[in-house]
């Protein structure tokens, strides 16, 4: 299993901006042709797409990436909920003053 990183349709040029803060990008998947801009994305991809093929190191990398993702998602949910509340009451006010 050599991580060969063949370049297919998903080319090595990022669509815009700096792809990641990490110097080692792109992170190739050792089991398929896909490349990722962040190590966490690659590790998540490994766990989601190649669960049967993982080495113990890859598995633990997947699990820690998943934990980090879960944490960020929780934060995102709070933000989204806050935004929902703002939108709801914002419109309530808007309707109250303009009708």
């Amino acid at each position, binding site marked *: 299993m050599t991580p060969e990183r063949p370049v297919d*349709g*998903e*080319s*090595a040029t*990022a*669509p*815009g*901006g700096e*792809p*990641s803060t990490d110097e080692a990008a*792109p992170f190739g998947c050792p089991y398929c042709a*896909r*490349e*990722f*801009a*962040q190590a*966490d*994305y*690659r590790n*998540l*991809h490994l766990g*989601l*797409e190649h669960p049967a093929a993982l080495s113990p190191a890859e598995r633990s990398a997947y699990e820690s990436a998943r934990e980090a*993702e879960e944490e*960020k*998602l929780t934060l*995102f*949910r709070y933000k*989204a909920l806050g*935004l*929902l509340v703002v*939108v*709801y009451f914002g*419109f*309530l006010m*808007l*309707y*109250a003053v*303009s*009708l």
Partner: protein
Amino acid sequence: MTRPRPRRLAARLLAVGAVVALAGVGRALAHGGSLGSDAGRALAVPTWLFLSTGGAVVGVSFLLSSFATDRVFLRRVHGWRRAIPLANAARLTTAGRAAGLVGLALVLVVGFVGPTEPLRNAAVLLVWAGWWAGLAMTAYLFGNAWPVVNPFRTLGRALPSLDRELPVSGGWVATVGLLTLIWVEVVSPLADAPRLLATVVLVYTALALTGAVLFGDRYFTQYDPVSRVFRFYGAVAPVEYDGGLKLRMPGSGLEADFLDGSGEVAFVVALLWGTTFDGLVATPPWARFARATVDAGVPSVVLYPLALAVGFLAFLGAYLLSVRYGAWLADTYRDPAVLSRRFAPSLLAIAAGYHVAHYLGYFLSLAPALAGALANPLSPGQAYRLVLPGWFGGLSLAFVLLGHLLAVWVAHAVAYELFPSRLQAVRSQYALTLVMVFYTMTSLWIVSRPYAAPPFL
């Protein structure tokens, strides 16, 4: 008999839209309604507020869908299928083909020799109310029956075919074909002149049969814009054909990677823009714009095709740009071409929402006239129209919103398929959601304009 234009719904929708959009502001509305006790429907919701409410509904639905973060759940919902047993499939197919052929013959005969009043002419009613409103609605509400019913395909099968290779891929050819059809439909009185309609159908028949002889069945799957419209609408439907009939969640067909490239993406956008353009040309701002442009020296003949093309390119550009920007936000190496291909089907849900909003009322109100004309095509009696209750306009707005909600949900599921990180998936949709919000607001703005006859036609 003019075709339905979205602005008919306008006044009623203004008030009802707000209620559907944010149930929480019901009290504010009731309060506003009491200003004029009888003016409940013409309740003065300012246009900007009406538009931003519509936009906010789409934005909020994006936020809500982002709470569905369980991949297993999403996959189960979208992957759910159940086979529908069908006893007499062969007999049904034959019946469908026969119905299509009878319909085509009827349109041609009655179109040329039938009564000239459109409301009593079975050809006009069958094409607009029966086929373009009724059958197209069944395509996304139930399943696409057009491949069976399509009389041109049935005739084409009976002809010998040269079976040539397609010289160019079908997507762009079909896109140009669709835009041409929209142009013909907008600039000519096809719904009022049975003779003209029959002539156009005859020309279309000649084209389709030539295509079938040259390219065989591929003409219908690749080049024919009408078959493609039905096929793409069918992708929204809760029934799919996969060797046998299968039931699925509405919209879950849009999640599949079924577009073959930029041409088919363009076709999806053209379908969406066509509906918008149809409404846009019947608004006062368009009339003013058209007069000003012609005064400035642009020949009136090129005005409509030019506007159609420019608007289409603007819509396509906005979509492609949003996908690129989404790819940048999501920090991905995925090819933008792949992303635009995968997200484009979600727009079909929006197109279907607009179609049902515009045509359900149209179909129901003309159904008695259609039945009457079909009962006696050559000398029909008095034509009756069904009068729809006032709340029906609100139902139409609900369909528009439902289409958008389905689109947001589909894009959410597609993003989860494409990206390993769920936050990446959410970020990839920011720009697309903005485009959908923009699109909702544009359409609601068109819907809320009063009717003005399109000038220079």
